[in-house]
């Protein structure tokens, strides 16, 4: 049977980007289906009834959801190099640990910084800096999380390479620092320099406008809630 690979994505979400990077790394051909999350297609709801989100990968008619789950599926199904996860079980455990840390611990405070102000925003920023210290320690002495080439954890953290500066522009706050986090700064550059990464960012100006509008909307909602 001819391989049929479809990816449901939005133009801006960083999670489907992870899947695009993985597929381009492996040279997998796929069809893209753009979703408007304010008007979800029947297909998306059919393929991801539990979360109704992107990304969804559909391989020969079978859907897989949740970006980190999809990445492991890709690595196990298309076994050609590069391997996204290392072969050594301990190194695999480390890659999975740091990817989980990214999604469970690093992302939420960054999202909070975007949609809050005042004391709440300060607290989120402080938590973010604590997380950055952890990531800095892990990256010390390494070019990428995966070593010499990008791997599972690099793909997980990849959103930082464009979205941190977008968030900085929208909020006026510093989210990283070349002096305090030299390993992260080097990693951000090295990751961005990988040609297939460079070629696949969503348009920056559009991202800034989108996150600016999102911040304003959330701040307005919060103000309304407290004034009731």
């Amino acid at each position, binding site marked *: 049977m001819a391989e049929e690979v479809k990816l449901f994505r939005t133009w801006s979400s960083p999670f489907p980007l992870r899947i695009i990077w993985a597929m381009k790394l492996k040279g997998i051909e796929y069809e893209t289906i753009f979703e408007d999350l304010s008007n979800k297609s029947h297909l998306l709801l059919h393929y991801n009834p539990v979360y109704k989100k992107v990304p969804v990968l559909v391989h020969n008619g*079978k859907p897989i959801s*949740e970006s980190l*789950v999809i990445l*492991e599926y890709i690595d196990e199904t298309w076994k050609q190099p590069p391997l996204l996860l290392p072969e050594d*079980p*301990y190194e*695999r*455990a480390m890659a999975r640990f740091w990817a*989980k840390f990214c999604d469970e611990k690093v992302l939420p405070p960054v999202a909070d910084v975007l949609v809050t102000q005042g004391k709440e925003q300060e607290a989120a920023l402080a938590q973010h800096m604590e997380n950055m210290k*952890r990531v800095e320690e892990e990256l010390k002495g390494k070019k990428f999380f995966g070593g010499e080439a990008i791997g599972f954890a690099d793909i997980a953290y990849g959103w930082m390479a464009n979205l941190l500066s977008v968030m900085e522009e929208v909020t006026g706050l510093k989210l990283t620092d070349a002096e305090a986090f030299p390993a992260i700064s080097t990693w951000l550059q090295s990751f961005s320099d990988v040609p297939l990464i460079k070629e696949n960012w969503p348009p920056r100006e559009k991202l800034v406008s989108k996150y600016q509008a999102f911040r304003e909307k959330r701040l307005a909602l919060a103000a309304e809630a407290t004034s009731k």
Partner: protein
Amino acid sequence: MAKSDVKLLGAWPSPFVNRVQIALNLKSVDYEFQEEKFDNKSELLLKSNPVHKKVPVLIHNDKPICESLIIVQYLDEVWTSGPSILPSDPYDRATARFWAAYVDDKWFPLLKELRTTEGEEAKAEISKKLKEGLVLLEEAFIKCSKGKGFFGGERIGYLDIVFGSFLGWLKAVEKIAGLKLVGELVTPGLAAWAERFCSHEAVKGVIPETDRLVELAKIIQARLKAQSAPK
């Protein structure tokens, strides 16, 4: 392999620790268990899991591995002579991982909330969401089991261990909240599976007795109330 090569830092009431114990049993791995106290963490724990400072931590040949799902996969990938925990087909593996994440990220937090919720209306709201989740898991069970007794098919597998490890607390919370969540009417597959799972060789003696957990919940609740009481 010498017993001292594998050490598990854990706590008896933690379902996340229970998962790892079940996996170790399935693989017939000899290991040393170090019981950790919540309010007095050992040096070894703090050194082995500086990021989260939590159990379980598996220490294998002096290298620590943290996060229960990651530990279970590690065990499966290292002890390949024992029965496989994850399915062999990539799509089945993805399905198992998807539902494992759902159980941990969406379903269990609701169970924890129900444990400490007071008021019939509030309890009803959370238990409704829990039951909706159980209906999804019942469907998942039917798909994954393919007519056999476990999520893993004929043998216990990843999703059995991940979801099954919560059965102790599920029964305890049912008692505490005074309601039934898993039942033969709405979730017959899960009801039968739960009994099968709890009586499995690798599971017996790992998941704590319901009454013990209920007692512990009372103690924790009392402590929390004392801490937040006005001084």
